[in-house]
């Protein structure tokens, strides 16, 4: 079954007809040529396909495109302000928070979403007092970023980059 949907990606409106089986990730990558979100596992396990979906970080490989008609999406490519990188992107470069770079767009979107969550006072699994204040220690950063795998093992530098960007 084909359905017409609208998506706004990085500020650009798009209208497209998708088969109901199309995921949001495939709609972006295969139909709109937006290749910043990556396909790692295609099963929700690696975080490479993470974007900001209606303002919150979300994986897109298990989301059906038809279910997100009208969605507002920001990818890592849309976070930079022209040539000026987003502070998270700059920090990842400064700290060698990547090797092959395949997981990086997902890491970037996840980090940006994660910082907003922490800002809003959301606790994590490692927060001792669920109702207390949130301090982004390395342990907190690692836990909150655990949905983003890095096959190159750049984890230590990713945590360092985010720690730096928080300051």
């Amino acid at each position, binding site marked *: 079954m084909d359905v017409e949907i609208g998506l706004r990606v990085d500020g650009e409106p798009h209208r497209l007809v998708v088969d109901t089986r199309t995921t949001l990730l495939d709609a972006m990558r295969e139909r709109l040529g937006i290749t910043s979100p990556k396909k790692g596992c295609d099963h929700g396990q690696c*975080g490479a396909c993470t974007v900001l979906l209606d303002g919150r970080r979300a994986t897109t490989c298990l*989301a059906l495109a038809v279910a997100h008609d009208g969605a507002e999406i920001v990818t890592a490519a849309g976070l930079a302000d022209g040539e000026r990188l987003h502070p998270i992107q700059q920090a990842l470069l400064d700290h060698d928070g990547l090797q092959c770079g395949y997981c990086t767009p997902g890491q970037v979107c996840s980090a940006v979403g994660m910082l907003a969550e922490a800002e809003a006072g959301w606790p994590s699994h490692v927060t001792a007092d*669920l109702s207390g204040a949130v301090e982004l220690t390395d342990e907190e950063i690692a836990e909150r970023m655990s949905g983003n795998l890095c096959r190159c093992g750049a984890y230590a530098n990713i945590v360092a980059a985010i720690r730096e960007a928080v300051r």
Partner: protein
Amino acid sequence: MIPFDYQRAEDTRSAVATVTARPGAAFLGAGTNLVDHLKLGVAAPDLLVDVSHLPFDMIEPLAGGGVRIGATVRNSDLAVDPVIRQRYPMVSAALLSGASGQLRNVATTAGNLMQRTRCPYFQDVTTPCNKRRPGSGCSALEGYHRDHAILGASRHCVAVHPSDLAVALTALGAVVQVEGVKGARSIPIIDLYRLPDDAPQHDTVLEHGELITAVDLPALPMATRSTYRKVRDRASYAFALVSVAAAVDVERGTVRDVRVALGGVAHKPWRARRAEEALRGAPATDDAFRAAAEAELAGARPLRDNAFKVPMARNTIVATLRELTRREEP
């Protein structure tokens, strides 16, 4: 993936009527489990009725002091809700221990409760599995079953229920609100889930087309001192080998009341009633906690490769109760 139709549900009544009338139809939440199953061929619905936009996205007080959680409340929003964090910390803790931030941001309450087992054979359509294809056999019985059940299993299926949230809700004695073509019904969560017996294809007692609209938490003041402890192979982002949701009410060193439920050990979240009974009126000591855990686990029937779960469950019960009682009496 076989082709399917998609409808965004307009209202509860039509969603329920549509799915009930069509044997191949299924409700869709955020899709984080169902879309995975579409890809794997585990599920092949011919129509998805998207209920994720129905107006059940509220967390509201109930007359009588309880709290109603709407079926479409997202896992993160539930976990961070101030009332839930303060009055039912085990619910927040259970959710925060599951999946990842970006999955919790979309996953719905009802979808979480209705997610299906992570048994690798269930997810692999090339292997026999009674839950996926009734009568085909259980590959896990003699195969890979390290993650599987130690309580309440049958020779037809030894899978465990994967939801962390459901374990906390079982400890609390939550009630699931369901809407069907014949009207609404309330199902205590303990009765929602089934043991496998000879029909492991049914995870729950819901009939095809019955829609979860809300989950009600009882007032339960002692739940303000509750927690969820999850033991897993990795520090994060993994399903439970064993988990414990517990709440304790201790007065002058004696357990007045207690709630304990176990995850990762059975086809359903396991309410540890024997342990609870043993603990009521007992001293809040490690010895009493251990004895209660052992009473519960006396019925354990581990498989070849998962006997480790019995002492692990015992130790986790003890550690969880110790943490709660130490916290209560500084």
